[in-house]
C-alpha cells in the first residue's frame, strides 16, 4: 500500500468535506447573556474614569481662583505700590537681621 497516495487521497477527502456554517438558534442572544454575566467592574478603570472627569472642573476652579486673586479689591492699584514696598522692606530686614546685629554688638565693646 502506498502511504503517500493514501495520505493524498485522505487530504482530498477532507477538502471535499463542506463545513457547515450553521449557527444554533438565537446563539447571539446567548453570547450577549454570557458577556453581561461576565462583566466585572474594573476598579482601576472606575477610578481612572472618575479622575479624568474631575480634571475639567478642577481646571475651571483653578482659573477662577487665579482670576479672583489677581482682580481682588485688596490688590487695588492705589495700594499696590506701598504693599509691594512693605513686603520688600520686610524681606530685606529679615535677610539682613544678623548683619545688622553684629555692628551693634561691636560698638558695645
Amino acid at each position, binding site marked *: *500500500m502506498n502511504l503517500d497516495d493514501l*495520505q493524498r487521497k485522505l487530504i482530498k*477527502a*477532507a477538502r471535499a468535506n463542506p463545513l457547515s456554517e450553521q449557527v444554533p438558534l438565537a*446563539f447571539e442572544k*446567548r453570547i450577549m447573556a454570557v458577556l453581561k454575566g461576565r462583566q466585572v467592574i474594573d476598579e482601576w478603570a472606575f477610578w481612572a474614569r472618575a479622575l479624568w472627569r474631575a480634571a475639567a472642573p478642577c481646571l475651571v476652579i483653578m482659573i477662577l481662583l487665579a482670576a479672583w486673586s489677581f482682580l481682588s479689591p485688596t490688590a487695588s492699584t492705589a495700594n499696590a505700590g506701598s504693599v509691594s514696598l512693605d513686603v520688600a522692606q520686610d524681606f530685606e530686614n529679615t535677610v539682613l537681621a544678623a548683619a545688622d546685629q553684629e555692628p551693634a554688638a561691636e560698638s558695645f565693646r
Partner: protein
Amino acid sequence: MERSDAELIAAVLKGDAESFEPLVQKYSPRVFATARRYARRESEVEDIVQEVWCKAYQKLKGYRGEAPFEHWLMRLAVRTCYDFLRAHQRRREAAFTDLSQPEKDWLEHFVTDAEGTNEEALAARQLIDRILSDLSPAARLVITLLEIEDRPVKEIAKLTGWSSTLVKVRAFRARAEMRKVLARIAKEKYL
C-alpha cells in the same frame, strides 16, 4: 441603516455593549465553520465559539483597526481552537480493528484500486477525521491549515502567532506524524 464594523466596535468601546450583538450575528457562521474543523461534538463546537466571542469582547481594546475585524477574529478563533486541542489532547492510537466497517471497506477499495477510490465518500471523511484526531495538536492544526484549507505559510504564521520557519518545521513533522498514524492503521493488514 446597517452600521459598519468600525462603527459597531467604536460604540462597544464607548460602553454600548449591545452593539456587539450584530458582530456576533454577522461572524458566527465563519467561527462555527472553523471550530467544526477541530471539534466533533456540537457541544464542544459551541463552547469553542462562545470562548472566541468572550475573548473578542475582552480584547476588543487591542483591535487597532489596521486589518479587517474578520481577520483579527479568525486569528483569535484559530488560537482558541489550538488551546482547545491542547486541553483535550488524547492519544488514542487507533488501529485497523478500531475502524468502522465502511472505513475498512474504503481502505480495501483503495488497496485494490487506488485511483478509482472515491475521496468524497463519507467513509473517507470519517477516516481522515479519525486520523486527524490521533495527531498532536500542533500537527493537526498545521495539517488543517496548510493541507486541507490550503493556506500559505505566511498566513498560517499570522493566524497561529508562530514564525514562518516554525510553521515549516511543524508542517514537516506533521506530515511525518500523519504517515506514522496511517502506517500503524494499515500495518495490521496491508504492510
